[in-house]
């Protein structure tokens, strides 16, 4: 390792530790402390209490099905959507690209409620329609169940997988697939033996990130799991801390430790499966060719399938939100409901000073936080992929620390940490906790992108006398544009609707949109909740579309084409 690389690695370890290790240390201390709000009198009683709870066994079973099921569903759906959106000539690609990331712009509680209105067994809109259409005596679906939770959580986490897989798919060198076809392999064999193995780092990264996300998820388990009496680890933690007047967050931290161990274990699994990273390089100094696959006869059927999936899984729940925002209370659609429709909920939300202040704060955290987070992610991913030392492995593990805990728990870790600093109860407490907790969202797409870039490109630049900074700026970063766009979009959309940390750290003056959503939810004001949620979705779509347009302008293919054009102009002039 060069001295410059060593310095960068250790500087990042210090910085990331300050952000992620400190709150986790607070949680470790809290889990071993006898007191409920201060550290000291260390004991194991909190661990004994939670790990001998008779409910834990069934909770672990539910959790395993919930996280693996939703992560697998999210990853497979993302793979399908990413392939069609980035590699084929499917029509209306831009629309489908936005729809693919749309669920992550919707607050989880709201998405859960929307699905409950569609598929609850008593009077869910879709269930009622199916019962009438097929003369059924009972509702065919029950969203308050483990499969229902898997479906909704999978949909919410799908954009995370999509934003990791799509850039890798987009910078895929099609000549590898062409070579396979030259050797007379069919499309399925090519897919199984060439495409999927090369995309393994991205698929693994997406799957693992979705697992970790589902482990920490609280919105769906609380809105859909609790009514169906299906408890997973996050709702089990909620039960543990709410049963007492003085919440024992030490117990919550004690449960969180096992989630942490699972998450760190998964990172090592990921590293094991992607240890020979050279196998996954698709962008080398030979140049690469992201080509478009002609769907021919399959174009229309696939377009219809994509349209149906997008409508049922993404558009319909959003339409339910629009409907809910227009009625005075939650009503089953019908004459009475349509007669009662008005813009009252929208007026209340738009005029509400706290909502406006929340919007301002959320925009700041989203724009500035995501930019800082992406910059940090580029550096961390570079160290993880390109430097590959024991220290970089350690850096990768600590970057996951805060993220591995359920939000409700890590929020307390940050509160215990920040209350000892001047930034407590300021917007900066939210800023740093967001960046620290969601850093893996920035790092994962970047590592997948880095893995695909051959080291010879940088070496050539350095041999030609360019500095490290110049090499990064002129060679590496332009090739990373799809990854950077994905990182930024993931972080920005996450920051824009972040709830768990904000609920603990936000104070008057530093409210964010998700806190307003929570207030409306606690008050049972679903109409206002939906109106504000739709405003959030609209702003997120504008942001994502804007960044995608910006990213498309600077992606490598475009840059190269422009350079060719510029270089060819003087030739034209002289000829």
């Amino acid at each position, binding site marked *: 390792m060069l001295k410059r690389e060593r310095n960068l690695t250790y500087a990042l370890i210090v910085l990331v530790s300050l952000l992620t290790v400190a709150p986790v240390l607070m949680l470790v201390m809290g889990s071993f402390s006898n007191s409920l709000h*201060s550290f000291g009198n260390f004991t194991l009683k909190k661990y004994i209490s939670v790990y001998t709870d008779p*409910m834990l066994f069934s909770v672990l079973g539910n959790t395993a099905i919930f996280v693996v099921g939703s992560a697998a569903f999210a990853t497979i759906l993302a793979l399908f959507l990413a392939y069609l959106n980035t590699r084929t000539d499917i029509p209306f690609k831009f629309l489908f690209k936005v729809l693919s990331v749309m669920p992550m712009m919707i607050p989880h509680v709201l998405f859960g409620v929307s699905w409950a209105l569609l598929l609850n067994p008593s009077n869910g809109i879709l269930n009622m329609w199916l019962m009438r259409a097929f003369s059924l005596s009972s509702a065919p679906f029950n969203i308050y169940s483990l499969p229902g939770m898997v479906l909704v959580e999978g949909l919410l986490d799908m954009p995370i997988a999509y934003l990791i897989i799509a850039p890798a798919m987009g910078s895929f060198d099609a000549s590898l697939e062409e070579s396979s076809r030259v050797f007379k392999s069919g499309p399925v064999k090519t897919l199984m033996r060439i495409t999927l193995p090369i995309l393994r780092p991205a698929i693994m990264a997406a799957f693992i990130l979705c697992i970790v996300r589902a482990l920490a998820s609280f919105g769906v388990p609380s809105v859909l799991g609790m009514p169906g009496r299906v408890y997973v680890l996050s709702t089990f933690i909620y039960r543990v801390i709410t*049963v007492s007047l003085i919440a024992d967050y030490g117990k919550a931290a004690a449960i969180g430790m096992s989630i942490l161990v699972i998450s760190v274990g998964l990172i090592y699994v990921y590293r094991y499966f992607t240890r020979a990273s050279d196998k996954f390089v698709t962008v080398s100094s030979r140049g690469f060719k992201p080509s478009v696959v002609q769907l021919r006869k399959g174009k229309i059927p696939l377009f219809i399938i994509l349209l149906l999936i997008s409508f049922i899984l993404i558009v319909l729940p959003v339409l339910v939100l629009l409907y809910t925002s227009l009625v005075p209370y939650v009503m089953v659609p019908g004459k009475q409901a349509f007669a009662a429709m008005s813009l009252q909920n929208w007026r209340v939300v738009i005029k509400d000073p706290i909502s406006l202040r929340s919007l301002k704060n959320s925009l700041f955290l989203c724009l500035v936080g995501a930019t800082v987070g992406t910059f940090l992610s580029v550096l961390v991913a570079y160290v993880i992929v390109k430097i590959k030392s024991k220290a970089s492995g350690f850096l990768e593990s600590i970057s996951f620390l805060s993220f591995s805990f359920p939000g409700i728990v890590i929020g307390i870790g940050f509160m215990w940490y920040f209350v000892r600093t001047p930034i407590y109860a300021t917007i900066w407490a939210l800023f740093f906790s967001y960046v620290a907790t969601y850093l893996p969202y920035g790092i994962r797409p970047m590592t997948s992108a880095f893995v695909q870039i051959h080291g010879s490109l940088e070496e050539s630049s350095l041999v030609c006398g360019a500095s490290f900074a110049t090499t990064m700026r002129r060679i590496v970063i332009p090739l990373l544009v799809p990854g950077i766009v994905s990182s930024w979009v993931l972080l920005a959309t996450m920051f824009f609707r972040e709830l768990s940390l904000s609920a603990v750290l936000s104070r008057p003056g530093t409210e964010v949109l998700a806190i307003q959503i929570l207030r409306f939810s606690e008050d049972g004001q679903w109409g206002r909740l939906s109106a504000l949620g739709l405003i959030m979705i609209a702003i997120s779509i504008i942001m994502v579309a804007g960044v995608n347009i910006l990213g498309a302008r600077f992606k490598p293919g475009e840059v190269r084409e422009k350079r060719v054009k510029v270089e060819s102009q003087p030739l034209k002039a002289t000829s």
Partner: protein
Amino acid sequence: MKLKKTMMVLALVLVITGMVFAAGKTETVEEVTSKKVSLYANITAIEPILEHYNKTTGSEVEYTRLSTARYVSTILTEVEAKKLTADVVQGPLPILEILRDQGVLAKYEAKSAADYPDWAKKDGIYLFGIEYVGLIYNTDLVTPEEAPKRYQDLADPKWKGHIVMADPGTHATTISWLVGLKENVFASEAEWRTFLAGLAANEPMFVASFGPTPAPLASGEKKIGISMPKYIVTHAPAPLDYAKISPMLGSPRAIALTKGAPNPRGAEQFLEYWLDTDAAGRLANDVGEYVIAPGVYPPIDGISDIEVIPIRELSDDELQKWGAEFDKIFSLK
């Protein structure tokens, strides 16, 4: 070149935005230490009362909403770090008693509570309302005749699959309410346990707290629920009404000043306002709260004829014991 320019513009925008926010934060801190009153509360939907206070006194109230689950932990953590910014705290009585025992609260003699009954004044803590709980139903699906006439009626099998309630294993107010029924309504523990078994057999749908109970009732997903009658006011014109069963039980809502409040005079002024009949009237009329101020009732038909009584405060140990017991009865464990 364009990439470079775009990056520079982006960087400039970020720096300027950061500076604007940093400047905004300094102003807020100054304001907090001068005129604003900081209120930590778990009561919801009180914005109209705070707005009225602002209009009449010119002083602003910063309202930090703390859920019961993280109330004590947050405040004690801030106290420990000497960073408690609350001037006034509002929450369930047992929680404020814990804070008083930890030396967080100040003793203050409120003039506007002079007419309050003695049981509502507890050594610097003032009870101003009761978080009353009742049986709420959807009027499109249940007629007043069909509605329960006594609590025992909720165990009738006709309600199977039609009930929504907060999780009886964890929701402190629901646990206290169920125990309150045993101590104030049922003739014997055996009768009470029969009621619980019947209620459990009706397979109620559980939600985290009272907040999410009115939505499934209003939409008709469920016909009846153990909820708060105040939602009839806050969710109007939803088709909701309540079973007129007396007595109605609830946890006492309390308010107090903090020791070493950053704005002590503002805190006293606000507490006097809050306990005054005028504010109590607003709390009843705008938020549907049941207040202790004499002669003030929420605008809910027939509520003045119902006896609303505060239930015994359960200790932490009792809450955990009964929570575990209800877990078993409702087959959660």
